[in-house]
């Protein structure tokens, strides 16, 4: 039996792997868990990737003996109602507020995730402005402040590589917080801009464009803000190198941080 630790998710000579997805039967079962038959208020775990070996990606040979260890990375998937706390109220008010608008709650919100005391609404990108408008204007929601956009790049998730996360705060309704997560694929990185609804997002969207390449349609002036104006590439993407240089010490040269041995 050979130890093959080169690529994550790829194991050769594994006699149990028969499906096309490259998953073992146990993993396939886990990835097909859905929210039917789940207890109320319970969050279904969602598999977003696999961790190979004991120490994750390594450079060079694996002498740990744990090279065939393969564990799924589980994040919180959809949560079943009731959510608990003020989250139910938010979901109900949003549903009510979206009635008569361009999209209903079911069309706009793909999933609601309650994890670690925080509510995340996974919103489909074309309905983001409608949802944002209801979040701001509906008296029961009244999220006056959008604290900004945070981009995340998941190169392994095909079809939804770029995520934009908006965090909202409601001062009038007792400091409630909600997060809206919007995703878009790499080959069509467009998300409608909500600068008209929350002008504070102006620079945040510019920063997310600068760092990730997400184009916010409808933004008044989407230009580079942190990097020089003619900089190529989007630095905080995972396929952009850290860009360091090797460090010279007396008698040795150490490679830059992204090329060193990692223990992740």
């Amino acid at each position, binding site marked *: 039996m050979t130890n093959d630790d080169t690529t994550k998710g790829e194991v050769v000579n594994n006699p149990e792997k028969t499906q096309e997805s490259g998953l073992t039967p146990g993993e396939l079962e886990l990835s097909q868990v859905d929210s039917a038959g789940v207890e109320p208020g319970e969050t279904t775990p969602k598999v*977003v990737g696999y961790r190979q070996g004991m*120490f994750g990606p390594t450079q060079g040979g694996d002498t740990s003996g744990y090279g065939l260890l393969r564990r799924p990375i589980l994040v919180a998937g959809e949560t079943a109602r009731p959510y608990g706390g003020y989250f139910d109220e938010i979901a109900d008010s949003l549903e009510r507020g979206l009635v008569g608008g361009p999209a209903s709650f079911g069309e706009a919100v793909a999933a609601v995730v309650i994890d*670690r005391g925080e509510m995340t609404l996974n919103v489909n990108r074309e309905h983001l402005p409608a949802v944002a408008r209801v979040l701001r204007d509906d008296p029961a929601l009244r999220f006056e402040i959008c*604290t*900004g956009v945070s981009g995340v790049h998941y190169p392994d998730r095909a079809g939804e590589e770029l995520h934009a996360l908006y965090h909202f705060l409601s001062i009038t309704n007792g400091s409630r917080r909600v997060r809206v997560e919007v995703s878009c694929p790499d080959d069509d990185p467009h998300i409608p801009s909500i600068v008209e609804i929350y002008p504070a997002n102006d*620079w945040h969207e510019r920063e997310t464009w600068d760092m990730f390449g997400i184009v916010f349609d409808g933004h008044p002036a989407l230009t580079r803000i942190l990097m020089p104006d003619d900089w190529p590439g989007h630095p905080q993407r995972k396929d952009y190198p850290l860009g360091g240089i090797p460090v010279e010490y007396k008698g040795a040269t150490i490679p830059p941080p992204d090329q060193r041995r990692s*223990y992740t």
Partner: protein
Amino acid sequence: MSTNTDSTTTESTHQSDPYATTAADEAAAGDAPVFTVSGGDWYSVVDEATALHEERIVVNMGPQHPSTHGVLRLILELDGETVTEARAGIGYLHTGIEKNMEFRTWVQGVTFCTRMDYLTPMFQETAYCLAIEKLLGITDDIPERASVLRVLMMELTRVSSHLVAIGTGGMEMGATTVMTVGFRERERILSIFEMVTGLRMNNAYIRPGGVSQDLPPGAIDALREMVPKVRKGIGELEALLNENPIVKGRMVDVGILSLTGCMALGITGPVLRSTGLPHDLRKSDPYCGYETYDFDVITRTSSDSYGRLRVRIDEMYESLKIVEQCADRLQASEGSQGSVMVADKKIAWPAQLALGGDGLGNSLDHIREIMGSSMESLIHHFKLVTEGFRVPPGQAYVAIESAKGELGCHIVSDGGTRPYRAHFRDPSFNNLQAVAAMCEGGQMADVIVAVASIDPVMGGVDR
């Protein structure tokens, strides 16, 4: 001066009008519009010129400037002394800290995020550590002494940050004494930081799970000695500034941003509190045990730079009140020697740092144990320091009330020893968008006062 009253003729047939435009003049002017003015029609020409934007100049208050709070570039279009358009150019201090953090362990990330807003290092550390603790699920397991130490450090940082804000604001207006007084008081606070954490600035003191080390002996006495002195110093600042007619003349009704404007631009912090809204995350969404402390939220209603100055000064007094309460609690729990790190040894920073003969380092007892008696302890220490602990996959957002506003930390973990993504919502980044709203229509000199009252720190803006 021509003698005839209607004077906008461009051709002159007789020599008695030496000021009329000749064909030669027109040829020399080329494409530029030529105005002929002689008596009585000056205003109509000026109106025309203004309409053609000929009086406006674009001035660049470049990244290197004594008054722009770091490397901020302000592009101003001026009409005489009035600013008609103000735009801020940022990014001159972009360090790629967030991307760097993706290649360092969770604990090492503290040393990076601390250097974002370098005037309020403890706030960044706290926001980051609170977010990690939320992901780990150990928010309730943080020892109380650690929380009290965090609050102490944060409030001292708040005072030192406001002192710099007021000091540099005063210096930009020309009052150098304000700066020397402010920095003198700040040195007192920095000496406390040095005593407790080992460094004056950018101290990586607050770590996931607690704080890196406990107070050294004599720290509480030094703290108690320092607080009245700092209070007196702030009193001196108040005497210099509060009723000063020059300060009032330069700051009252300057940089006005009403509550509507603040809400539209998502402004938080002293700028929002100067409009009258008592929004403070320490009260509305408490963390680290802030709900158990007795302090007030300071507001003013004037929405101008003077109001923000008064808000900052009064906030400093409130912070000192909290510092005294912290000192009482620390003294009470000193005898029992409460731990300052979470009990879970798989997360807690393994080294008990202590001040030895050669400076700050691992305590000798700990060294004796891991080198002498227990191999497992040595391996454990080694693994925790080099590899770090693993954080369960997920994402968390924690917001705290920094000296400048709401500082949010959003981290995404994929189950590893490094952050998958760490993003900081810096208050200065957001608040600096208000420059245009505050300055357009005002005077050139008011731009400096308005920017000083927003108190941006470019390290936080550019990260």
